[in-house]
């Protein structure tokens, strides 16, 4: 077996195991997370938009 194929297979198995490990936590988080208000989500959206703009600026600089 080629080295790169083996690398891909081990990466995929690792990713698959991480997904299996995270799955119950995702379900628990979905059920137990407190609900945010519209204003809270707007704040989050603005902050993440700021990050996206900042990354765009970095790409332009480079």
């Amino acid at each position: 077996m080629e080295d790169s194929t083996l690398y891909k297979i081990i990466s995929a198995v690792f990713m698959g195991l991480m997904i299996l490990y995270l799955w119950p936590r995702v379900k628990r988080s979905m059920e137990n997370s407190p609900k945010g208000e519209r204003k809270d989500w707007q704040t989050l959206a603005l902050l993440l938009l700021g990050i996206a703009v900042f990354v765009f600026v970095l790409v332009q600089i480079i």
Partner: protein
Amino acid sequence: MYNNPSVVTRPRESALESNQVLRNTYALLSMTLLFSALTAAVSTYLQMGPWTYLLSIIGAMVLAIFVLPRTAHSSAGLLVVFAITGLFGFALGPLLGKYLALANGAKIISTAFGGTGVIFLALSAYVLTTRKDFSFIGGFLMVGLITVFILALANIFLGLPMLSLAISGAAILIFSGFILYDTSQIIHGGETNYLYATVNLYMDIFNVFVHLLQILGIMSSDD
């Protein structure tokens, strides 16, 4: 009512405890970032092979998932945290070596490093000054994270550069969200163990750095 000491002191004790966790977390985070920079430098200098990345990440995750929970309440936990972050740093060697071989590689790495610092400091400062509770984004972030994992798993075999770019962009936003969430958890008493808090914030920073490096690398290439 106002003479009841438990009413007055309990929130104050809780606030003091949160401040203590925050101070310990930032002190340990600074040390682990320096330590992982050292292991990254060693790994780059030794020109470690491409397997280094995958094996170091697997080793770090095994320690974080199976060993840290057993040692998080003892002094051995401190060693485990350094082992985890040292392995994450060591994993970066082949990646940094690849970028350093490019004509503008040093600029890409320094921009990704500076950009990650700005993102972390800005988001942390926002949470610490506003003291806003971001616990409501926990479920949203976990769904985003697992979606990124599934897409990354598919792209191991598809190898699409545009999907890779989209995954990195989404990962930066998700781990930026985790910086808000994890910092908020510390100051609102949701995370009282500074070893866990350090590993969480370290992983957020590590992932923002790696994916920013990826985006800058793809966007600056002529291919």
